């Protein structure tokens, strides 16, 4: 019990939403697992001791949607680069959407991803399998083989299933084997060639709009099929208040549906695309202030149980073109925790609830044992200084991750240590921090 792989974290304010703990206490780690909380086990000797006084100790963050760009686009980012960034950001579990190249529709791709993640060893990578082969929406993928290889859920990425019969079959098949389906609700015909939320801002800027109905029509269809098939459905990246209200009703009727929202969707609105800021060219689009408020309310009620980063590193020039010609997406790993903490500042959520939305909340939606600090669970831990102010600076970001509208924003709360399976994978040197 005194081997070099023992660590103690002393004097921090431990917040574990899953167990309801919120108190100043100590935590003891051995062999990658949490051994005890509160009193050290008899004979425990720590090899590392972290003084966490004045800091918050919480579970390592669980991100339901982060693109590594590997395999297929290693010139943009890699598992090594993105897991390093995750470690800096307090994130220890990353779920990867299936739209890699090749697509995650065979066990071989899953194995490849898991092997490379193991080599980088800075965060846990959990692949999400493709519901249909090549994400083409025609033939079902080998969902069971993908699950056995390590996929934690199935999704069709950003390409919603256009054919309702294929969707029905895919959900029935997934339900047979207890697989959760992650659906990005969007009607592609209503989306048409839109670039921004259909509203006053898009009307003034002359940007073809994406109506709110593009999302709510798809949610209505997906909810009907969820009821019909009994499949467990997780709605991905909600953007509209109407969709959130429909999901709330479905939950009241005891349908097995859950939902997440991207962190940026809780802070930005259509107004942010003024002057054609291509960093705000996102999918789904930034919607109205009323939508943002409704999403915040749904988050507070627990209708939306998870906040994700929807991290998408892009080539440096992907945003350097007129708005409609730029790629959608933003790099979000670094802002997942700070944007969530900002919701606490703004009175949307309590601190423990906010942490729940980025730890046990997302984990529970996929039935994962992570995002919690209990004896026996994996020692994935994020320690942050809740008082430290910092500014997101362009020059301090990796070149593939500068596509964010949050450059120049001031945040409060910064990660000082990240532990993954008991190992310190990130540690900010306090002497270099202002």
């Amino acid at each position, binding site marked *: 019990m005194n081997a070099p792989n023992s660590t103690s974290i002393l004097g921090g304010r431990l917040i574990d939403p899953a167990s309801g703990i919120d108190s100043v206490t100590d935590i003891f780690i051995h062999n990658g697992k949490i051994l005890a909380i509160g009193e050290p086990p008899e004979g425990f000797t720590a090899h590392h001791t972290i003084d966490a006084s004045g800091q918050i100790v919480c579970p390592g963050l669980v991100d339901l949607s982060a693109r590594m760009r590997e395999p297929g686009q290693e010139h943009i980012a890699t598992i090594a680069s993105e897991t390093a960034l995750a470690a800096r950001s307090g994130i220890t579990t990353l779920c990867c959407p299936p739209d890699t190249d090749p697509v995650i529709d065979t066990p071989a791709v899953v194995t490849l991803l898991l092997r490379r993640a193991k080599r980088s060893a800075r965060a846990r990578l959990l692949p999400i399998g493709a519901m249909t082969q090549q994400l083409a929406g025609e033939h079902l993928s080998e969902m069971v083989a993908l699950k056995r290889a390590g996929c934690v859920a199935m999704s069709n990425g950003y390409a919603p299933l256009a054919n309702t019969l294929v969707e029905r079959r895919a959900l029935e098949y997934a339900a047979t084997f207890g697989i959760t389906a992650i659906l990005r609700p969007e009607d592609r015909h209503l989306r048409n060639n839109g670039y921004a939320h*259909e*509203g*006053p801002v898009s*009307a003034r*800027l*002359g*940007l073809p709009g994406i109506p709110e109905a593009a999302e709510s029509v798809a949610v209505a269809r997906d909810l009907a099929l969820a009821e019909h098939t009994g499949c467990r459905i997780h709605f991905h990246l909600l953007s509209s208040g109407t969709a959130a209200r429909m999901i709330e009703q479905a939950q009241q009727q005891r349908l097995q549906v859950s939902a997440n929202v991207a962190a940026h969707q809780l802070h930005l609105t259509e107004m942010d695309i003024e002057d*054609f800021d291509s960093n705000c060219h996102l999918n789904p689009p930034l919607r109205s202030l009323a939508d943002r408020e409704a999403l915040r309310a749904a988050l507070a009620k627990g209708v939306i149980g998870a906040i994700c980063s929807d991290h998408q590193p892009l080539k440096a020039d992907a945003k*350097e073109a*007129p708005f409609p010609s730029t790629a959608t997406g933003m790099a979000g790993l670094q802002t997942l925790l700070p944007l969530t903490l900002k919701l606490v500042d703004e009175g949307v959520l309590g601190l423990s609830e906010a942490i729940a939305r980025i730890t046990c909340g997302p984990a529970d939606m996929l039935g994962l044992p992570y995002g919690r600090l209990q004896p026996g669970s994996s020692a994935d831990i994020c320690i942050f200084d809740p008082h430290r102010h910092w500014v997101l600076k362009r020059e301090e970001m990796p070149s593939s991750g500068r596509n964010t509208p949050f450059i120049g924003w001031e945040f409060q709360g910064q990660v000082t240590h990240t532990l993954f399976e008991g190992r310190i994978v990130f540690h900010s040197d306090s002497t270099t921090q202002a």
Partner: protein
Amino acid sequence: MSKPNIQLDSHGRLKHFLTIDGLKREMLTEILDTAESFTGVSERVVKKVPLLRGKTICNLFFENSTRTRTTFEVAAKRLSADVLNLNVSTSSTTKGETLLDTLRNLEAMHVDMFVIRHSDSGAAHFFATHAAPHISVINAGDGQHAHPTQAMLDMFTIRRHKEEFTGLRVAIVGDVLHSRVARSQILALNTLGTSEVRVIAPRTLLPPDPRTLGVHIFHDLEEGIRDVDVVIMLRLQKERMTGALLPSEHEYFQLYGLTEKRLKAAKPDAIVMHPGPINRGVEMDSQVADGPRSVILQQVSFGIAVRMAVMSMTMGTQAQGAAAR
């Protein structure tokens, strides 16, 4: 929270001309007054003033255009500038060069001004944001966003006929949803203090809540043009039929085509405008287009003076421009 207007320099003078949005009434009036001072130039024996001598203006057209590109070229030449016409839809971008690279290459040729037309909304803003500080950018139409020089030549035409904007009732008829011209006209009319701006179209050709643009909505043509002073007809693109926005040209003309008979609902001295090119028999009858109320060809000739005004103002030579009167 409001960002500085990128169209203005630190002294509040016009640096780029990208959109009417955010410009004050005084600025629009200055453009109209400056244009007024240039109208004489075209009628001289020597149709030139030396205001932009030694300057290089690049007409960068990523979309086809005859009239707009030609009037910009004529305007630049009457100001004695050197003009470079680039029809980019057939050149480098098809070879995979990015817009930013195109910009950088042309900058290296010491261009002083870009006149840009592009199918992407926001393209002119993109150029203005990325161009070297001494370069001015004029928007000659970007996607469905703005076409501010067209709007200003329309304002010039209206002012020539009606003098004051206050007290005027103006109706814009047709495809407002896809029209950069309409967006800029509405902003200009409202900024100049027009009493009432109306738009007349079926809902498929209007933005979801057009009132946010500052207009009154009509779905019936005769009702909408009743007692108006100015009727502006918009061009109807053929592709609107394929996008399930309209059933047919025939039905459109039945409902929204301007005829002599329908025009009777407007004021007796109402003028009829169209940014061109006209689809005769779709937006309006030939009788109306060629009739006594039509000022469509005047719009074209005023376009040269308005573009000379905007070019000289953005290049910081408008004071001399007024002196050249």
